[in-house]
């Protein structure tokens, strides 16, 4: 009982501390960064969506580390759930349930539309809201609906992981092309005076690579959960 009361007192102290500091926020603000992006963002990166321009051109370093964290998580989940017993003819009694016919029909109708929407969000990430990470999550959800239709079609995880590692190295290679044309790493390699259509080749390529990589990573995590111990 004493523990709960002291916990509530601690939370109230944190709340009043935050209240005191949020009252006078105007003294911290400075709009230098926002004005710079508003004035020069379109000229230097070539994308109308400024958020895509930030995480693909100004801060590509952060996106590379996020892709690295995805690889680390996928490898961790796969290593914990592995086992060496290869006799797979065991049939557990609770696994013999049949999915209802309504689910199967509905999944067959919905699957092509979800796939098309995911590819659209990936490809047009530099013009409208969207991008590599968001579209990759939608494509992963579309592939996972296939497990409703036939739950024995889970592919082996090894091929998926090999493709994912090759894609990560390709992203690193495409990001380093700009060392030869501009002298610095991880930025748009085309010159500043090129037209918008030429500058957006780099953005579309990186968005597609990141999208495929994220979707394969999420599918691998889900497959490791399904096959754990069976």
């Amino acid at each position: 009982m004493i523990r709960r009361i002291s916990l509530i007192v601690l939370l109230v102290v944190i709340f009043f501390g935050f209240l005191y500091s949020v009252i006078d926020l105007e003294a911290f603000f400075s709009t230098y960064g926002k004005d710079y992006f508003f004035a020069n963002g379109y000229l230097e990166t070539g994308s109308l969506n400024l958020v895509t321009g930030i995480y693909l051109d100004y801060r590509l370093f952060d996106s590379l580390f996020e892709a690295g964290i995805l690889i680390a998580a996928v490898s961790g989940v796969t290593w914990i759930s592995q086992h060496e017993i290869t006799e797979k003819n065991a049939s557990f009694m609770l696994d013999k349930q049949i999915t209802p016919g309504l689910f199967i029909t509905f999944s067959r109708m919905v699957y092509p539309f979800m796939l098309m929407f995911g590819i659209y969000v990936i490809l047009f990430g530099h013009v409208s809201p969207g991008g590599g990470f968001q579209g990759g999550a939608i494509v992963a959800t579309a592939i996972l609906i296939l497990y409703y239709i036939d739950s024995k079609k889970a592919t082996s995880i090894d091929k998926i992981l090999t493709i994912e590692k090759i894609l990560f190295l390709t992203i690193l290679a495409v990001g380093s092309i700009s060392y030869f044309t501009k002298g610095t790493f991880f930025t748009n390699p085309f010159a500043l005076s090129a037209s918008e259509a030429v500058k957006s080749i780099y953005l579309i390529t990186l968005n597609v690579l990141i999208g495929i990589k994220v979707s394969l990573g999420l599918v691998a995590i889900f497959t490791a959960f399904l096959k754990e111990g069976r």
Partner: protein
Amino acid sequence: MSPILTIIVILIGLYGLATSKNIIKSVFCVTIIEAGVILLFLNLGNLEGGSIPILGNVIENIVDPIPQALMITTIVIGSTITALALMLCIKIFHNYGSVEWKEVLGREE
């Protein structure tokens, strides 16, 4: 007023994390704390007003685009942390036989 309501959500999640008896409920509360923190960052970027950071028409002022780019990364990392934590929970159940904190911690040799 709006940042104050968001900090209440974060503190409720923190209370749930500290006093939960089930391992899976602790993972639920981590998801709640993460969504509250993202909302707080986006709220502090919108205090002056402006429009969506997508150029195209004639606009005068935009919202700060840097916190939005960082929060996309945060969402993806939060989901991978949840997946890793739940895989460890399944292994704990098969090794110790229960998913309560007191029984699992008292059993360690």
